[in-house]
């Protein structure tokens, strides 16, 4: 008789290559019978930024710190919710509209923890992980400015 697995494997990857969501979920849930919910969030390069058409997007990061910063928030998520697995993949390089940029998978026994942890991780990825976006459009190239609404989204997780 084997007892149910209750570990929380963590995978954090920063890569140029694309990812396959179905494959990543399969890896996360393989041989597990304790996972009742997997939430996946994928961020995709959009073709427009409110006003202008985007031809391409370039993602730059701070190697070393980016992984550490994601790990810090993954640890924080694990201390807040009963999670059974976390995968965070962030791509860097140049992307065309429609291409994948980021993937967050959170697994738990029940859906609520998985939903909340995924949202928590994304809010912090956007405001605290050292990644920067540069847009290319018909009018030229420019660095994307941070949005106050993203800071507000992250601030709601602050413990009072």
């Amino acid at each position: 008789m084997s007892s149910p697995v209750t570990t929380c494997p963590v995978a954090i990857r920063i890569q140029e290559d694309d990812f396959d969501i179905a494959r990543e979920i399969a890896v996360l849930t393989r041989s597990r019978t304790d996972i009742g919910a997997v939430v996946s969030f994928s961020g995709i390069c959009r073709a427009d930024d409110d006003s202008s058409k985007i031809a391409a997007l370039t993602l730059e990061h701070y190697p070393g710190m980016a992984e550490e910063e994601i790990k810090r928030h993954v640890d924080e998520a694990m201390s807040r919710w009963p999670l059974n697995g976390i995968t965070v993949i962030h791509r860097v390089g140049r992307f065309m509209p429609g291409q994948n940029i980021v993937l967050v998978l959170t697994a738990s026994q029940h859906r609520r923890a998985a939903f909340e942890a995924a949202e928590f991780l994304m809010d912090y990825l956007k405001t605290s992980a050292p990644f920067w976006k540069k847009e290319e459009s018909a009018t030229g190239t420019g660095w994307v400015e941070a949005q106050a609404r993203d800071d507000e989204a992250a601030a709601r997780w602050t413990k009072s």
Partner: protein
Amino acid sequence: MKVKYFAWVRERVGKAEETIEPPASVRTVEELIAWLSAQGEAYAYAFEKPKVIRTAIDHAHVKADAAIAGAREIAFFPPMTGG
């Protein structure tokens, strides 16, 4: 100490990293930014709005009043826009 620049800070300074030796009187992040700003036009341009610049010491976010003593690597960059 090693200094790294990212995104438009890197483009404005004109290099991704360098080794600097600020005088002992430069004790905080804020003072380091002021000192760097006086090192030439490119630096003055990069740090023209010091409040916008984010700083990390040895891979951890810090505030403007953080002490730089003992830092191995200091990074300057604009607010993050990943995800």
